[in-house]
């Protein structure tokens, strides 16, 4: 059944991501050096990929389900500010800070999800609203409470160990979280029955509801997942760098969408894969960081990312057509 022929591979949603990754690896080895595949180099792009990847996975799921969440741009600083204000400014135990950061994610996710389900306003608009609202709330509240927009945080050793240490000197521990979360998502999306529901929702929401899928509940869960993941990443960053800033996080919006699209997820929903998003994220991180290992100016990396995105989308379209028109050959 799983015959791994080249043709079968091309028809899978992650085909574009594989080829894209291969392409950029060849590019950077050719123009730079293999240094970025060695320990120090690998750490630089793996760190970027892990932080981005934890956000990109739930964003990808939302896109498969036909929704979008851009409020993550504000949720990352919200997560880091919450843990820093609670455990840094107020000196509460770190676990309260961690719980606080995750509950902020939970709340905003619930708000996003319920608004989208109840109002039928496109999720792009709803989350654009919460993006600015949360950003303003964080800025206003932190100036009100702490008087500054940047708060120092000294985390307990156990929190440092789990969320903010460097493994082997340069690998952030969040890489392990990313891999674990990816594995979990692969199980839920591609092996458990629930994954099927998400694809069905993205394919045709009305039919999915008629088939008995709790589409509203599922939509809310997905929004909670993305907001909480973003605040988790923010929290880890605050614990790692011993401080939190109100600003930052905006780049995650576009970067996560790029990773997801390069990973083969269809913008209109219903098609994609977790492993594709995983490789899409790595591809993005390699381009983002690989430029430092070449003689090119750093500014060119955006050009490469833009071109790569367009190529990836075109490629993914072609592969999807192949998948649609595919009919097995007559058995001899």
């Amino acid at each position: 059944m799983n015959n791994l022929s080249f043709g079968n591979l091309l028809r899978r949603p992650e085909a574009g991501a594989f080829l894209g990754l291969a392409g950029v690896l060849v590019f950077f080895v050719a123009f730079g050096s293999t240094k970025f595949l060695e320990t120090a180099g690998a750490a630089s792009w793996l760190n970027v990929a892990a932080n981005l990847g934890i956000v990109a996975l739930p964003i990808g799921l939302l896109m498969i389900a036909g929704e979008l969440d851009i409020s993550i741009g504000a949720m990352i600083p919200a997560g880091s500010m919450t843990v820093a204000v609670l455990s840094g400014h107020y000196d509460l135990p770190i676990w309260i800070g961690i719980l606080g950061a995750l509950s902020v994610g939970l709340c905003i996710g619930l708000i996003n999800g319920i608004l989208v389900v109840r109002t039928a306003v496109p999720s792009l608009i709803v989350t654009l609203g919460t993006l600015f609202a949360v950003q303003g709330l964080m800025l206003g509240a932190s100036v009100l409470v702490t008087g500054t927009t940047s708060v120092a945080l000294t985390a307990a050793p156990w929190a440092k160990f789990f969320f903010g240490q460097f493994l082997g000197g340069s690998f952030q521990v969040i890489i392990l979280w990313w891999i674990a979360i990816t594995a979990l998502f692969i199980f839920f999306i591609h092996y458990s029955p629930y994954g099927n529901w998400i694809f069905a929702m993205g394919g045709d929401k009305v039919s999915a509801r008629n088939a008995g899928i709790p589409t509203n509940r599922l939509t809310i869960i997905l929004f909670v997942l993305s907001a909480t993941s973003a605040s988790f990443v923010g929290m880890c960053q605050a614990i790692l760098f011993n401080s939190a800033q109100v600003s930052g996080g905006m780049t995650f919006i576009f970067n996560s969408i790029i990773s997801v699209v390069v990973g083969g997820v269809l913008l209109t929903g219903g098609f994609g894969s977790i492993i594709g998003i995983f490789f899409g994220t790595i591809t993005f991180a390699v381009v983002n960081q690989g430029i430092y290992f070449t003689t090119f100016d750093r500014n060119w990396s955006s050009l490469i990312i833009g071109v790569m995105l367009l190529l990836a989308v075109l490629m993914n379209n072609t592969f999807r057509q192949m998948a649609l028109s595919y009919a097995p050959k007559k058995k001899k």
Partner: protein
Amino acid sequence: MATPILELENVNKSFGPIDVLHDITLNVHPGEVLCLLGDNGAGKSTLIKVFAGVHKPTSGTVRFEGEPVVFNNPREAADLGIATVHQFGGTFPLMSIGRSFFVGREPTKGFGPFKIYDRKTANSIAVKAVREFGITRIDDGDRLIGGLSGGERQSLAIARAVHFGARVLILDEPTAALGVKEAAHVLRIVLEARRRGLAVIFITHNVIHAMTVGDHFAVLIKGAKAADFRKGEKSREEITDLMAGGEAMAELEAEIESYSTAHSGHPPQV
């Protein structure tokens, strides 16, 4: 005659001040195809939504196997085996045949939190079910729905409803967007469903399609049942006349008539 499986008695439905259905009495028996005919806006969609539990009648009774029932939502109707298949509905272009077939009712293997979707079983059951309905072109459950023709998708949706225990099959204009051959295929599947003892409610504009498969016909005009007859009781021309709105046509003719008299025999300028 045996008890009808599904029956409406003096059903009225209004949305606020607008009356959509007037006093509809209609029944359908197992192993019978009821064709609902009518022009756009005649109330066909509302009527099937009453059957399917989407709308509650404002007054009147719905009976299932002789027992009065009230459906609070489509789910309750579905639990009794009333399945609606909409045009192109119920299938997902970018999902595999197996996955689409089992959406919401995925077969699993394993236990506890480690239950996994059983792709092999899903694919083989799905392929077998659609092949029994005569779509022999499908032999791989991993193929995507989007690669199928409109008729095949429709047939898949019907096969799915039958597989999951439908006893009343409501088909909402299944042949409307299909070519001649495709439509013939869907009609064959309607007959197959009837042969298996399902009650089929078939909504269509197309009198030929209706006459091919129907045992019992009801024509709706402006929310009221204008005619209710069995196979062979009316000719195709009579049905077409009825559908084209009977009184509406007569009114138009009368209007043209009065215009001509008022303007010394000239027809109205268009």
